[in-house]
């Protein structure tokens, strides 16, 4: 409390105002459709101001929520007196910097955008357990941990030990089916007659039907759009994401008990299952889908596919739902429909690509506590709502209560001031435990990811069959897992 001795009258009034606002906000949110049962958490200015004057470094992928927060950090500065410096990078560059920072022991970054597969799984030993801060009576607690979408809290926040929480869900991009509603409507009758099913996405839509729709559009509607579908099939992480939806839909998987390995992570995932008949069937289907798609698909990652979709080159594709923000500002704004991805013989699977933010355990404990304030604030309902509304952001909230707010509910229909909310129905279906697609959260994932997308790229180029592709991928996985285990052996 010594700092109070130096507080001016103006500062005292400002802090009282901030405190009052912080106290009022939870009540406001619950009145707007939150759980309503939860008493407002007491927030004192003392516990938020105790690290005033600290400067934190936050390293993040160049994603929407970070852009939004960076553009409007004032509420956090006013609340805490803490300044935050942002380093926004492409994900691969971020992983390198974080890994080297952990290794150096310097702790250059206090808050880390902890990709569950490329940062959390291999480097969880260097990340602080957030329960330590949440249980500290001198620090503000997380407001309603259960408000986070459960699958995301586990997938983004935990690794193996379910009692530990390494990160709080920060964003939640998920692959969904984006299609040109206008073109589907225009040709709906003819497609239905020719194909024998309604082309509009439904619960029963399958990947086989996706292929037939794509093929039909290419043959019959190329005046409206040159190709029926596009894929993010570049030799890149995007190819693994795009393929995995089909793999899981056809009953294939990377490992036995794949959903658990994806949700909670594993130190010992067991033998890869990629050479199983279901996995090979998934690879065959994926090759078939790409064969009818825009030929440039093999050169597109997610950004390339989004550009082609917005440029009117393809009528549909599987794309991250956060791209809706850009799509609804493009020339096809208002013409796009969003749905859960088609199903295969087994299920519908929608790749989840969300990430949490974590605290670097290498930094001094006082700075970790200051970082906790930021992590707590950045994932709070108010900040997530603000990000969603941000003109530079367009985030993807990870708290359920946000989607129940009346203004967010109202934005679910076009024209929408919060375009990402247009995808709400699709993503909520995608996030159910039976539909979510979770890649393996294992320490060797960086190398396994490279193995699978390289082998798939070879398959798509025609240099190997789906069977060889999956067999080679399995062998590659085994080698990578063995090497990663050796690197971690103490």
């Amino acid at each position: 409390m010594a700092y109070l001795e130096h507080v001016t009258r103006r500062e005292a009034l400002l802090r009282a105002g901030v405190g009052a606002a912080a106290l009022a906000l939870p009540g406001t949110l619950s009145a707007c459709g939150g759980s309503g049962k939860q008493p407002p958490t007491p927030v004192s200015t003392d516990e938020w101001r105790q690290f005033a004057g600290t400067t934190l470094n936050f390293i993040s992928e160049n994603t929407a929520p970070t852009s939004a927060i960076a553009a409007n950090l004032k509420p956090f500065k006013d609340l805490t007196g803490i300044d935050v410096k942002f380093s926004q990078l492409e994900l691969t560059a971020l992983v390198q910097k974080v890994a080297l920072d952990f290794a150096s022991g310097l702790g250059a970054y206090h808050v880390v955008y902890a990709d569950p597969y490329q940062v959390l799984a291999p480097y969880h030993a260097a990340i602080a357990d957030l329960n330590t801060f949440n249980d500290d009576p001198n620090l503000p607690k997380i407001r309603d941990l259960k408000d986070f979408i459960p699958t995301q809290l586990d997938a983004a926040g935990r690794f193996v030990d379910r009692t530990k929480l390494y990160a709080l869900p920060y964003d939640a991009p998920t692959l969904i089916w984006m299609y040109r509603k206008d073109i589907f409507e225009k040709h709906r009758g003819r497609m239905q007659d020719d194909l024998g099913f309604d082309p509009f996405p439904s619960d029963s839509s399958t990947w086989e039907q996706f292929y037939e729709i794509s093929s039909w559009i290419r043959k019959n509607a190329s005046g409206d759009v040159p190709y029926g579908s596009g894929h993010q099939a570049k030799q890149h992480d995007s190819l693994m994401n795009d393929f995995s939806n089909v793999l899981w839909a056809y009953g294939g998987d990377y490992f036995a008990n794949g959903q658990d390995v994806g949700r909670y992570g594993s130190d010992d995932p067991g033998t890869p299952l990629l050479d199983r008949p279901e996995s090979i069937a998934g690879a065959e289907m994926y090759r078939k889908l790409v064969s009818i798609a825009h030929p440039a698909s093999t050169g597109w990652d997610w950004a390339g596919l989004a550009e082609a979709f917005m440029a009117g080159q393809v009528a549909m594709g599987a794309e991250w739902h956060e791209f809706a923000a850009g799509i609804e500002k493009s020339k096809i704004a208002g013409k796009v429909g969003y749905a859960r991805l088609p199903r295969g013989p087994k299920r519908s699977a929608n790749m989840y690509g969300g990430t949490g933010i974590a605290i670097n355990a290498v930094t001094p404990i006082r700075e970790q506590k200051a970082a906790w304030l930021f992590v707590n604030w950045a994932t709070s309902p108010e900040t997530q709502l603000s990000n969603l509304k941000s003109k530079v952001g367009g985030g993807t909230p990870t708290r359920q209560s946000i989607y129940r707010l009346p203004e967010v509910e109202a934005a679910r229909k076009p024209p929408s001031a919060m375009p990402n909310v247009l995808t709400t129905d699709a993503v909520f279906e995608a996030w159910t435990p039976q539909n979510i697609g979770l890649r393996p959260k294992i320490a060797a994932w960086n190398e396994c990811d490279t193995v699978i997308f390289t082998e798939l790229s070879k398959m798509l180029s025609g240099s190997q069959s789906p069977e060889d592709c999956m067999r080679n991928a399995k062998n590659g996985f085994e080698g990578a897992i063995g090497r990663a285990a050796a690197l971690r052996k103490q």
Partner: protein
Amino acid sequence: MAVTTQKAPAASAPHRRPLLRRGISFEAKMLAPAILVLAAVSIFPFVYIIVMSLSQVKLIGGISFDWVGLDNWSRLISDNAVWVSWLRSIVFFVLSVGLEMFLGIGIALAIYETRRGRNIITSLVLMPMFMAPVIVGLLGRFLTDSTYGLYAWLLDQTGLYNGDILGSTTSAFIAVTLMDVWEWTPLIALIVLAGLSSMPKAVLEAAEMDGASYWARLRDIVLPMLSGVLIVALLIRSMDAIRYFDIITNTTNGGPADATKIIPIRLYETAFRFFDLGYAAAIGLSMLAVTIVMANLFLRILNKRKGLAQ
């Protein structure tokens, strides 16, 4: 002169004292800071990387080395993927450096013969080499994009190619090779142009007076006189070509189907994606060895030529 420099030390030899008794000479003291800087930036990292190549490097909890002897080296020798990357590097090297030499010489000769607007033409020709390779990669990706790329559109309109340039194995390899050729041909042209400018005009004029055709002068006088310069140009570009990285990273990142995964891309992937730093050190040292062998080869040719000229 040579006799003098050989005799002088011999004459002073009886007066020499062992190094330790003599202490550090004035020259050595003057050189010491430079040697220390050189050791810090070059010798120490070199020794460090050798130790890395003989260890398994762990990052968590601070960097630690576990001695594994020659494991990384034996893995390197038996790793087919690395050999395939070396093969791709050789094909890339031959194609890119070959085209750059051929076009660079041609452009330099054309500029040399130009009488009007020579400075403007030279400036324009040299522009690509002033661009950062990463920008060349981004520009190349933009121009070859099948949705809005100018080159993709031109090839499609002319019916020459209608697929995705960076999405197919052969076209992607050709594209990244041509991007390098576009950027670095001007360097060869500049070096050759400098060589041409320093050639004695009297010899060429005499040949012309004697009725030698342009091609005869080129074959029998110009190219032989330029050969020293050409070897230097070849040496510079060869060492660069082995390290070709930026453009591929920004365009294909080694794909599709590993078609453009030359050895520097594999090294980067091993070091900074898989963080298998011990193995990456072995790959890096093998690249260094190849570069040194190549440089020595060219220098030997150069020295042989100098010997013949004297």
